[in-house]
């Protein structure tokens, strides 16, 4: 088991966002969380990447280590858990290349870095064309590619993806998901995917969870969930 989350509780001030959810991710597995707007999906990812503090009672372990002992940057550099946040959040003033290089800040294996960059360019040839462009001026889809590439560079035991399809054209969306699948297959990277587009997400993943107002209400393998009438009604548009 790669990641084990138990009784995850998070609040923002007076607002309770997560009421104690538990789930697991195995190595190399693709897991999806679906849910309505404001259900707490992003919050879950933020809690794992230690961007928001969790409340007492929460336990999270990654490869047997207590995740809560790691600050946000060490979660990435030492545990290999990377987070592609909602809205991409690239460093717009840095060039494409610099964005990729920065992601290797804490890495010691210089030789592999070069190889990995080449790998990213193979997956997303568009990025190589735009190597020197300031990332802030790229279009939404290009930015999404770079965000994934950046995550790829910083560690790839587990990728936390927050709505990667948002705002992407249909073709590009397929490309992105294909690339993700490829990374998953070739590198054995586990993926925790959060998506509004539930059908796509469930098709893409092996296991799914349904989050409703801070509680996990349903879980199962994705195929089952797709056919679940409740899920169908609520999340797949009838």
């Amino acid at each position, binding site marked *: 088991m790669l990641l084990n989350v138990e009784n995850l509780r998070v609040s923002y001030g007076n607002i309770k966002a997560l009421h104690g959810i538990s789930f697991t991710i195995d190595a190399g597995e693709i897991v999806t969380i679906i849910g309505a707007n404001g259900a707490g999906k992003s919050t879950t990812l933020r809690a794992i*990447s*230690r*961007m928001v503090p969790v409340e007492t009672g929460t336990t999270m372990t990654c490869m047997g280590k207590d995740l809560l002992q790691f*600050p*946000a*940057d*060490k979660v*990435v*550099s030492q545990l290999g858990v*990377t*987070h592609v*946040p909602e809205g991409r*959040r690239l*460093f*717009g*003033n*840095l060039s494409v290349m*610099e964005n990729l*290089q*920065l*992601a*290797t*800040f*804490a*890495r010691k294996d210089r030789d592999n870095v070069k190889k990995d960059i080449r790998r990213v360019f193979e997956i997303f040839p568009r990025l190589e064309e735009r190597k020197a462009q300031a990332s*802030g001026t790229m279009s939404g889809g290009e930015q999404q590619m770079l965000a994934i590439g*950046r995550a790829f*560079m*910083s*560690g790839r035991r587990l990728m936390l993806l927050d709505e990667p399809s948002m705002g992407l054209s249909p073709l590009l969306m397929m490309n992105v998901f294909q690339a993700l699948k490829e990374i998953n297959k070739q590198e054995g990277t586990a993926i925790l995917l959060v998506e509004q587009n539930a059908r796509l997400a469930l098709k893409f993943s092996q296991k799914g969870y349904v989050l409703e107002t801070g509680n996990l209400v349903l879980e199962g393998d994705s195929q089952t969930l797709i056919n679940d009438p409740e899920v169908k009604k609520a999340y797949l548009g009838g």
Partner: protein
Amino acid sequence: MTFNFLMQNLINALQWGSFYALIALGYSMVYSILMLFNFAHGDIFMVGAYIGLGVSLGLLSLFGSGAAAILPGWLLLVLTILISMFLTAFVGIIVERVGYRPLREAPRASAAITGLMIGIILETGNILFLGGQRLKFPQLIESVTYNVGGVYVTNKKIMIVLVSIGLMLALHQLITRTKWGMAMRAMAYDYVVVPLVGVPMNTIAAMTFAIGSALAAAAGILFGLAYPVLDPYMGVSFGWKAFVAAILGGRGSIMGACIAGFMLGFIEIMTVPAIMIINRLFSLNIGSNLRDLIAYSIVLVILIFRPHGLFGQAYSAKLRL
């Protein structure tokens, strides 16, 4: 008169500009990386100068001065600069820890206020501990004046200009070429996600303050050599003017800040001879006292025509509220 006169003023302007440049550099470090007005920077410069004073006095008493000196003056100077830069870096780190880190999420202007307040505390602390009287900075190296065809240049002036240009180039390399520099720029753009790519944000922020403060210390010591009277408020006007230079140079541009620093020094010094020349040419009687008025009108006009500074790119960010 004219050529010598202009050359002389040019050299003066270079030295004066070096201080603005060095201080603006440190200011701009913090400013362009954390996007914070570090209004305490001028006072850190002051603290750096006083630390330099303490260190150099300590060294002098250890190694003797004048005829009894064991080590040559220039070596003491280098030691003083290095030790003081190191010590002042810690002051910077403390300032970051106490005054800025807790405010990282806050509006930038609030951090500006904390900076102002830390500055006041540093000034007052100085008065409390040292009693507020002016102190003399020891002249570690013998001052030598060269007369180059009627233009007077001192060895210190040359040294000051060279050291500041050297530091500026080194810093430019650091920011544009290294991973640290990249991380700093990334932080300027969006500090929230910096940890998400595995970069230790607090370390970067502390480093930034440390480097900025170390530069201020270097500036403080060079300043002490050139203008050997130290007082607790010596950093105030420098602080504000470095603020002007850092932004005039263009947001996020270290080089720009430096050049703007030189330029500001240049404008301030050169308005005096310029007024004089205009007076002669048109037999007017404008006083050199109009210097600030003219100098800052020039700054204002530059900004009206280059609304994003000399080297800055257009941006629409506003105060984080």
